[in-house]
């Protein structure tokens, strides 16, 4: 039978309590949460392509592709917010409280701008989600993503509250890592949505 040899650990050794990083159970919990949410978006994207492939005149109502005027800057803003989040996280990894607080605050601000732009995009479109199945899937997918962004912002506020009270240290900042992971995940989903819903109709 395979398996390492007993007794594994020398007597008198105290095992560490690891509360950050890939050896923390909480981090793995967030990973699997992102996996299940990714599957949710995958199902919506798959529904989009299924409808597009099986319905004649999918884009018939209001025929044109979604405009890129707002989504492109939205993408840049979201990517920037991931960068600021990453920057802040690296800060606390070295114990730099100030960098963490600034990083979180910047990320929050950029995220708010993203949502504001998205709501402008929605309001500028004269056709709503009840016009056709295309509009339904478009608004649902992008809207659900926006809801995930909003959730990420709430999580950001929550850890900001803790950050400003100095809860986090170089050795203990699992909440930051989890929020950061979630935020990057939401960003990645946006790239997929951009590609599939906004770019792909122009490409094929």
């Amino acid at each position: 039978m395979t398996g390492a040899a007993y007794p594994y650990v020398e007597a008198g050794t105290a095992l560490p309590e690891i509360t950050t990083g890939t050896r923390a159970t909480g981090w793995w919990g967030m990973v699997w949460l992102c996996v299940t949410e990714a599957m949710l978006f995958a199902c919506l994207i798959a529904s989009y392509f299924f409808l597009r492939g099986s319905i004649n005149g999918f884009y018939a109502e209001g025929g044109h592709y979604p405009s890129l005027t707002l989504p492109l800057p939205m993408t840049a803003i979201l990517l920037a917010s991931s960068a600021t989040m990453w920057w802040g996280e690296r800060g606390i990894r070295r114990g730099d409280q100030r960098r963490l607080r600034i990083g979180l605050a910047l990320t929050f601000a950029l995220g708010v701008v993203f949502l504001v732009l998205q709501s402008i995009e929605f309001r500028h479109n004269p056709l709503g989600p009840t016009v056709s199945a295309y509009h339904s899937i478009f608004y649902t997918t992008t809207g659900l993503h926006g809801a995930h962004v909003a959730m990420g912002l709430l999580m950001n506020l929550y850890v900001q509250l803790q950050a400003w009270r100095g809860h986090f240290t170089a050795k203990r900042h699992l909440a930051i890592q989890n929020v950061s992971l979630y935020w990057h995940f939401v960003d990645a989903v946006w790239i997929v949505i951009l590609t599939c819903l906004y770019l792909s109709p122009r490409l094929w």
Partner: protein
Amino acid sequence: MTTARITLSGLAERLDAQWATPHTVYGWFATVDHKKIGIRYLVTAFVFLLLGGIEAALMRAQLARPNGHLLSPEAYDQLFTMHGTTMIFWYASPILSGFGNYLVPLLIGSRDMAFPRLNAFSYWSFVLSGLFVYASFLAGAAPHGGWFAYVPYTGPSYSPGLNMDFYALALLFLTISTTVGAINFVVTIFTMRAPGMSLSRMPLMMWSTLTTSVATIFALPALTAALILLELDRRFGFRFFDATGGGTPLLWQHLFWVFGHPWVYIIILPATGMASMMFPTFCRRPIVGHTYIALATVSTGLFGFGVWAHHMFATGMPLLSTTFFSAASMAVSVPSGMQVFAWLATIWAARRHVFSTTFLFLLGFIVLFVIGGVSGVMTASVPYDWQVTDSYFVVAHLHYVLVGINLFPVIAAFYYWLPKMTGRLLDERLGRWNFWVMFIGANLTFFPMHFVGVRGMPRRIYTYPAGMGWDSMNMLESVGAAVFAIGVLLFLINVLWSRRAGAIAGDNPWGASSLEWSTTSPPPEYNFEIIPVVRSREPLWDAQPPATDAAVAEYRVLDDGRRTLGTTVLDGQPQEVLRMPGDSLWPLAIALTLAAMFTALLFASLAGILVTGALVLLCAGGWLWPQPEELVP
């Protein structure tokens, strides 16, 4: 090898003080003990089994004779919908979660699950979501679209009442519970196994629990997506499934079955894992083909994602697609065949057979499994499926696989593990009656369904005309259902009797090999005084069982607060100490606020949704706020 100097005297008392839930009202609501939560899952899921059974009994009473008028069509439609929905969602998966919750930490030599509070939350959400869906009966608006809820019948035009909103919202609530439960199992099994328990040494029930938990994480979102789209169509006039708006009802079917087919494997694979634990004990030998069974379990979970469209063969799909799915559906039965032959080999190569009630139910399980499996292969044949799909032939198939591969192993598992949970054995004589009555009842009820289906009786009909060749079979089925119900009753009587008067079980009444049998019956709240070291697949059958290990290293005692051990994923090398949270009311609080939020959604009250949603977030914030002890640098 040097022995660490550890204070072992008083260890049990120390651990008890740290882990025990107080016997108070607070303790009852706030406990995060996986064993208590497991038992709650088992009891609650069993109640749902009984409710689903009552629904079935009413249906069989209606169908016993042609032109029945015991039930109106609307009542019948609500009953068959709730029967399927209850059984598949609120019984079949939670009962397996119950056994998993109770047994996983014990089987892997740990003291709790990875996320104890999340565990409590998943139970409370499960029971509240069940109350939510059953409240629909009180509102006179129980779901009536079938458990599969095909649009457009379940859409806004044809089901304008609240019936299908109850369905969608209750299920969305339940999926939260099931998903977090699955995540809990995955992280626990990967990171908290005992030292020495490499992946290849871990019990087969861990393989099945792991496979189905990963499958759940991937499959359940398809249902979530489908339900969200359905509610958007129903409430806000979206056009996903509306053919006049560029949508199609087939979108629902694809999303539902992409979830639904993996789901049926999710509700049977853990039961096969439990069977693989029980067979060796009553054949007095290790299981034959341990590695093959693990591989077959994972394969079934994986391939199960590739066969969903076999539920849609009659929808007008291109023939090439139907052919592919037909082949895939036949192929997915191969790993199951491997498992069956592993069990057969174990029976064949047994030293002796111990004819306990558990063993009888396991034998019945194999017989019913094979019948259900071969009828499944018949429906995998596309042109034959064109005749038998949506007929009682499929009803026969699905009941053989569900009663056979879920219910029978579950009853076997009760006879096997209830003594560990309560400290008392069930009665073996009554158990024999239980088995034979249930086995005969199940076959009497479901075998004739093959025939009436082939003779042209469609599914989901509240009555049927006389003289079509269906009359005597239906009567037989209804009689069989009554017999089956008596069998279930015998089981209940046995369980209740054993709590009062059952023989004391002792630690290991069956002479079994896995770690849970090394504890007392019932186990102490901290499970293991000293985290065991595992050297083989059958730890208690080792020459040197873990309990008598002379060298006890400090890292396995872990008595300064609620602690357990984290080990590496592949080899089970000790890696870290995990701090476990204590009792907390936050899981219940957040489950209650979620239930309130779903109620607000049901009544489409914006103010209600905002208020309850805010409460949910506040509870989450309260839960996640770090404890003072966590802020020590």
